[in-house]
């Protein structure tokens, strides 16, 4: 029986800013439906890696393959059309638009209006608070609610691959749990593959199928989360 081919494969990827290489010859493969947790200190290159694979930053070397096709340095809008959604750091919402308008914009590349309405319903089922706050300006919601909306916007694309960059940053502990729950629900309801960068190890480790730890642009660990539950082991890598 042949192994399931990865949905995303990164081969010897290097990326950075000006002449500084932040990500160095990194290899990675993610299986369909997997939740891969990416850990590392500030400056380890996590956000740079995500930017490079989503097309926000042109890599200096290496390749990004999605479903076996080379998408290296492709514009984000092309990646979006191929089913890749990205939730960047911070509250990635349109602050001066309503929750409903934010969700409609999330489906900007979807031309069928009835499909947009169906997906809005799906997102609101997943995050009922967004249904309650439908007419509220996004910028006036709490940090946790804005994070739910940011994920909701990404889900409007019905993504096959969802990339989340520190979705719990700046949130109260109870909200972090809620965000992690929502990530699991997204996988359960949509079957999406999820690549998540997190600083909150305690809350994110239990939802991961696999963990990758980066240090100075390179992978220092890639394997099951169970091996990292012992804090002394984890500290060796971080």
């Amino acid at each position, binding site marked *: 029986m042949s192994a399931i081919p990865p949905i995303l494969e990164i081969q010897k990827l290097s990326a950075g800013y000006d002449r500084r290489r932040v990500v160095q010859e990194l290899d990675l493969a993610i299986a369909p439906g997997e939740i891969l947790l990416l850990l590392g200190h500030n400056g380890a290159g996590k956000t740079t890696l995500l930017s490079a694979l989503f097309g926000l930053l042109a890599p200096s070397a290496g390749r990004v393959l999605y479903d076996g096709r080379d998408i290296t340095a492709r514009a984000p809008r092309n990646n979006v059309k191929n089913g890749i959604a990205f939730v960047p750091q911070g509250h990635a919402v349109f602050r001066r638009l309503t929750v409903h308008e934010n969700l409609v914009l999330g489906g900007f590349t979807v031309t069928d209006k009835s499909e947009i309405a169906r997906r809005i319903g799906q997102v609101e089922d997943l995050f009922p608070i967004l249904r309650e706050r439908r007419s509220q300006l996004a910028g006036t919601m709490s940090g946790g609610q804005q994070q739910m909306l940011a994920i909701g916007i990404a889900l409007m*694309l019905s993504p096959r691959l969802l990339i989340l960059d520190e979705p719990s940053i700046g949130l109260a502990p109870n909200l972090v749990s809620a965000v992690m729950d929502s990530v699991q629900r997204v996988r359960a309801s949509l079957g999406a593959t999820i690549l998540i960068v997190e600083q909150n190890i305690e809350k994110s480790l239990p939802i991961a199928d696999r963990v990758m730890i980066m240090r100075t642009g390179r992978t220092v660990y890639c394997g099951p989360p169970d091996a990292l539950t012992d804090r002394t082991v984890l500290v060796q890598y971080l």
Partner: protein
Amino acid sequence: MDLILQLLANGVSNGSQYALLGIGFGLIFGTTGIVHFAYGPVLAASAYVMWWLAASLGLPFPVALVLGVAFAGIAGVVAYLVLYEPLLARGSPSFVVLVASLGLFILVSNMMAVLFGTDAKTLSDISYGIYVLGDVVITGVQLVQIAVFVIIAVGLAIFLRTSAWGNAIRAVTDNVAMARIIGIDTRKVAIVVFALGSMISAIGAANILVRDGASTHIGFFAVFYAFISVVVGGVGSVWGAAIGGLLLGLVESAGMWKLPTEWQSTIAFMVLFVVMLWRPTGLLRGN
């Protein structure tokens, strides 16, 4: 009381023109972040084009107007593609883009002076008449200015709220990085707003052409009042630019009651300073 009503009518009329110019300028500024000072010479050039088509070629004024509006749209897009986009692509800081915009302003203004001379080009056979409403005397041009502003403002608001392109413009205005992430082609949006904003400026140019005639300096005053309307109303808000322009017209008109007309620009700056001190992000809390 009669005088107050007359000043009010003048203020609403002039304010409508400022608001119209502010909407076009604000659409470009709010969406792309580019302070497009060459908005003024594009407006002036479209006025010359309309004058040339109507006076020299003898085309009916509505035809000249449509062609002038189309010319302005193309000129605006060319300015973006030839000047601003290459600068932004090279990572030029915003002050470099600003200086380039001023350079384009001077270049186009001087070219028009060479081509058409510095005297005003008027259309003598167009008259909208003069109307007496109670104790208020109002010209047809003033009524047209108000009507055109209302039609454009409402039309633009509907476009921005209901169309896919309108939603894309609002998204880019709010958060350009997020707009890119959800798949909006931000380059196309920039091209669309440069075209739309410039076309709106040409409609304002038609008002000026009929009222005062086309001359090289109309571009300066147009961009001056448009800029102040946008900043007073709040950058990134179409309604803000409209309210800013109307307020400017009304305050200016009230000022003209006691002050000579040379103080017109000073009053505009006074409005700007007062609003900026009171609400730095503009009346409608823009970006």
